[in-house]
């Protein structure tokens, strides 16, 4: 896919299974919305094909596709009330009035908006508008429902409720959902399959657990959750060397002495008294996070993020132990060295990335 000669999507090769909840996950400008718009028919790819039940639908206009979309910020019709918004697609299809009314009522119940039929759109809250948008798309019984960051405009609490709601609706109706989000937590908790994208390319496809536990490269490891990413060398199967020390690990199949990226999740690291540790470092910052402390430890100038419920004060010397299953090995990639160093750590890292993402579109 190209825009003004600039390549936005490159080599996207995706299969969607029936009744699947698939999420396109990635930072701003990674091409996930573009992918969705191609599937919806609002953009025609400059090369490549879109197949639906085995038929190429590149030249099929949106109104002839058995696909419906829940748009970012809903795009509800302001001149129609809730009922007429939901009935819109059925009216266009010229279904009998009685059937329309029955299906709209049914949908209102599914999204929990009984009694709102004759309310005007402007009188609804964000969460309610969002439910109308979902109902308006689902009432047409599409084979595939596209959702473009449908929860981005809602506050955290409402977002959590709607996540459960969407998952429930998807399972109840047995429709394929293709969901776009930049929120990794949302992606992990809702999806059957997660597609991590960056720079117009698919970085990894897999089940949420696999994406989290077995990230393919430094980008995925950093984007999904927090990761300490270190330079290492794979000496042989199950033996990796970093920080001048050889560790046992559970990964194999690398070339002898291959340089690799080593991922260690902050929550997998256990503190031990300094004398018993594999590595010994100094605590440089401690932040209370509610569930745990975020502790930054300096190991020979490389700073790690460690999440733990044990308190260790600033300036304290601590030791850590790493179990083989806590160490995950990845091939080197174009992203090596770009992520996973917490030297510039600030307590606001979550909020900062959130803000950057919200600037999308």
């Amino acid at each position, binding site marked *: 896919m190209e825009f003004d000669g600039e390549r936005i999507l490159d080599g996207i090769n995706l299969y969607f299974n029936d009744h699947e909840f698939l999420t396109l996950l990635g930072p701003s400008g990674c091409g996930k919305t573009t992918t969705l718009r191609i599937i919806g028919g609002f953009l025609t790819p400059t090369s490549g094909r879109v197949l639906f039940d085995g038929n190429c639908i590149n030249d099929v206009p949106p*109104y002839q596709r058995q696909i419906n979309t829940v748009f970012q*910020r809903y795009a509800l*019709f*302001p001149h129609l009330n809730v009922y007429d918004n939901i009935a*819109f697609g059925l009216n266009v*299809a010229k279904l009998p009035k009685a059937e329309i009314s029955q299906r709209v009522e049914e949908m209102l119940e599914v999204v929990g908006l009984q009694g709102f039929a004759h309310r*005007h759109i402007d009188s609804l809250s964000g969460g309610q508008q969002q439910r109308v948008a979902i109902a*308006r*798309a689902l009432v*047409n019984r599409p084979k595939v429902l596209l959702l473009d960051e449908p929860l981005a405009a809602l506050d955290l609490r409402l977002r959590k409720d709607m996540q459960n709601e969407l998952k429930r609706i998807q399972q109840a109706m047995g429709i394929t959902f293709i969901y776009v989000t930049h929120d990794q937590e949302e992606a992990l908790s809702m999806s059957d399959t997660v597609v991590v994208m960056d720079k117009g390319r698919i970085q990894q496809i897999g089940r949420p657990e696999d994406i989290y536990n077995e990230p393919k490269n430094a980008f995925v490891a950093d984007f999904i959750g927090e990761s300490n990413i270190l330079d290492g060398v794979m000496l042989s199967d199950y033996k990796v060397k970093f920080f001048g020390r050889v560790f046992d690990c559970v990964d194999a199949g690398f070339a002898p002495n291959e340089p690799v990226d080593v991922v260690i999740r902050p929550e997998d690291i256990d503190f031990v008294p300094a004398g018993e540790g594999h590595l010994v470092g100094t605590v440089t910052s401690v932040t209370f996070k509610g569930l745990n402390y975020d502790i930054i430890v300096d190991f020979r100038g490389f700073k790690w993020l460690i999440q733990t419920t044990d308190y260790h004060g600033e300036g304290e010397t601590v030791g850590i132990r790493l179990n083989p299953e806590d160490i995950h090995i990845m091939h080197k990639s174009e992203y090596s060295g770009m992520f996973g160093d917490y030297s510039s750590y600030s307590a606001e890292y979550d909020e900062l990335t959130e803000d950057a993402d919200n600037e999308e579109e």
Partner: protein
Amino acid sequence: MKKNKSILLSGPYILWMLVFTLIPLGVVGYYALTDPDTGAFTWGNIQDLMLFIPTLGTSVWYSLVSALICLLLGYPVAYFIAHRGPTAQKILYMLVMLPMCMSFLLRTLAWVGLLESNGIINQFLGLLGLGSANMIGTPGAVILGMVYNYLPYMILPLYAIIVKIDNRLIEAAEDLGCTPKQVFAKVVLPLSMPGILSGITMVFVPAVSTFYISQKLGGTDTTLLIGDVIERQFKSAGNPNLGAALSLVLMLLVFICTGIMNRFGSDEEGGVVV
């Protein structure tokens, strides 16, 4: 505190309105209801208005036809402009405004030069050996003059509304199965309604009271408009009392028309309040 200040600031204009709008309106009302010779109260002027009902009818008819033609011509233009890039939009907007920068009188006189029996168009037709057409003094010429002069008042409000229609609504309609024609009928047109109504009002109101266009491009008895009659009462006929009565009725008519329009408009968005 704030309220008091805003009254102070709007004071000059309120005074202006009082002196130059409300008081003159009272004077018009006074003239309309008094006898030209004795100055005594009378319904005579209002009764005389019956004579001018056909003229009033012609005025309303011509203005409605003009407003309709303006709408048919203006809507596609406004839609076209609203869907250009930002620079093209500015240039096209300027072009629509451009005729309004030229004097209204001059623009109308220019049409006289074009439409006259030995005017530019007829000379051209003569050169082609097509004979000459009788254009000036016909209802068509008057309506043409109205359309030409008031078309920008139709395009500008339409453009202002259409440009604000969210493209995602159009995509949503396509997504829900609308062909391009249905998108227009079910989404774009209903959402343009406020622009259509204000455009029609903006064309209808000045057109219904015009006298210059009908004098220059019409000038015959069949194209006599209510504006001409009013002007005549004040000037040649020397009967300001009848003229005042006519003006009052015309004003009332405009009020009723705009009232109906607004009613339509608020019905469109009526649900907002409910």
